[in-house]
């Protein structure tokens, strides 16, 4: 009542855990000895706590536990008393919930995460592959005609998805790795001893099931029923190509407007299959 603030509120003395405990104990009619007996602390420690004399008490961890037990004995809420003690711990932030990803659980053997060594190994392999690619590219101009055996050895690693369009800049690259495979009965005698007969693009052409004529330079890839690549090559303007194999054939033809395709003697219109100049179709 004596200390009135300018805004009218009354200044209260700072909240003391010890004083609050002492008052509550007196209200319940308990003596210091009773409390000491119940909490198994020495009476001097109970008195020290009520006097807020932390120097005579153990470390603050023990004091906090002491206050909690004492508050419960006196049926008080321990939270404000603990908050009034020095060194109150900071409450931890709420846990961030994250979505659970479903992972396969079929393997019974413990697995290790690929570490840095694997990353380095993968980088080396990519670098080697890039080096090989550049070397092959530099090898192209004026290269001698390749033997069928050599051409088999440089089969492209994963030729499932061909380039989206026959860009002229890429044409020379594609020509290097291009190869032609036809079925055994149509191969020339020189190549007949190979397990999968293959003839170079320059081999004498014979009329086959599929026939293509090229009005402009274009890129073609043909795969047969078993997914084998029969033909993957860039053809110059004015050339033509025939081949046989096991139907159905999957064809990807770059610059399809400049290619005339006949299958089993019938002309096939590429316009309905073309998208951005590249025709993709299957011949049954």
């Amino acid at each position: 009542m004596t200390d009135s603030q300018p805004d009218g509120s009354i200044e209260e003395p700072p909240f003391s855990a010890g004083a609050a405990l002492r008052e509550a104990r007196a209200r319940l009619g308990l003596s210091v000895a009773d409390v000491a007996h119940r909490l198994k602390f020495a009476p001097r420690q109970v008195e020290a706590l009520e006097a807020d004399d932390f120097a005579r008490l153990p470390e603050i961890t023990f004091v906090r536990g002491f206050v909690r037990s004492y508050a419960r004995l006196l049926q008080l809420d321990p939270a404000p008393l603990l908050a009034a003690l020095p060194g109150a711990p900071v409450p931890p932030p709420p846990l961030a919930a994250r979505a659970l990803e479903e992972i396969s659980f079929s393997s019974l053997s413990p697995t290790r995460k690929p570490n840095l060594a694997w990353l380095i190994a993968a980088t080396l392999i990519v670098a080697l592959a890039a080096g090989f690619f550049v070397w092959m590219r530099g090898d192209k101009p004026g290269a001698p005609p390749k033997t069928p055996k050599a051409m088999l050895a440089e089969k492209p690693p994963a030729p499932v998805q061909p380039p989206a369009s026959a860009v002229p800049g890429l044409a020379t690259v594609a020509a290097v790795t291009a190869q032609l495979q036809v079925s055994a009965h149509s191969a020339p005698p020189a190549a007949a001893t190979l397990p999968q007969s293959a003839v170079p693009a320059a081999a004498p052409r014979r009329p086959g099931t599929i026939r293509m004529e090229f009005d402009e330079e274009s890129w073609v890839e043909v795969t047969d029923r078993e997914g084998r690549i029969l033909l993957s090559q860039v053809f110059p303007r004015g050339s033509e190509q025939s081949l046989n194999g096991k139907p159905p054939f999957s064809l990807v033809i770059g610059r399809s407007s400049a290619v005339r395709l006949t299958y089993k003697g019938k002309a096939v219109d590429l316009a309905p299959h073309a998208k951005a100049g590249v025709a993709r179709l299957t011949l049954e």
Partner: protein
Amino acid sequence: MFAFLESYFSNDLAIDLGTANTLIWARGQGIVLNEPSVVAIRQEGGPNGKKVIQQVGLAAKQMLGRTPGNITAIRPMKDGVIADFTVTEQMLKQFIRRVHKSGIFTPSPRIVICVPCGSTQVERRAIRESAYGAGARRVELIEEPMAAAIGAGLPVEEATGSMVVDIGGGTTEVGVISLGGAVYSGSVRVGGDKFDEAIINYIRRNYGMLIGETTAEHIKKEIGSAFPGSEVREMEVNGRNLAEGVPRSFTISSNEILEALSDPLNSIVSAVKTALEQTPPELGADIASKGMVLTGGGALLRDIDRLLMEETGLPVLIADDPLTCVVRGSGIALDRMDKFSSIFTSD
């Protein structure tokens, strides 16, 4: 130099792989995960089909005892150690994935993981291997009493005795610590799970009713108590009547639960008394003046401190936030890993 870079990019983790709950503490972030150690596994396409993790953590715990034939909810930890190696590894992997973003430039985390002090070398090896399998770069093990003492804020490095009793889901660990080392450490395989089991057995024996683990845990949390108090509380429980075979409800009181829990509580009291007997007198005097500190989920059982106080005649205190003491202590140990390496176990 590389070690410096790795520690810069990686989030080191401290894990309390408990029987009931798994907690993860990340360096600089504090506790980032607190989930029950439960995994629900779905079997796809017949008995030989592949197994897929359906849920982990809280969602899986809600499935316990309520799953159809093709889903099994498993608690892969038992008595503080691994009971199912593969499932534990997958559970850890899932938890770590939630808190540790993996990327090309993020190395695997260093992990500090706690083990019960009574675990065998084989059990420790299993925990270490499962952490490696879950993607750890380096694994350090710390004994639970030491982690609990550090987490509770006890002066472990000083020349004074500090006693900690960590009552977990599977084990109760008792440790007396001085000068950064364990003077005594003991472990009994009694904890929250044994309390639940005791309640289930009591109700079956006295009421002829069958209740599940989840219900038993709920009873323990609601009206469980370790010391007879002035207030007797009651609770209505649903279970299956063994004689009739149909669900029935009945009312159970806190005094009955106290009676049910007497056996596991006696084991804990014996472990604490054994520890006090084995403690050198100077340290015993320190403990008598400061008291022993309770941590772990078992410390939340009503009046368990009162029971230990009456049985030992010593002050018994409950730590701040007892459920997270072990993981916080492991986190502090992780922060000081380089200069504080002696507290990690070498097994």
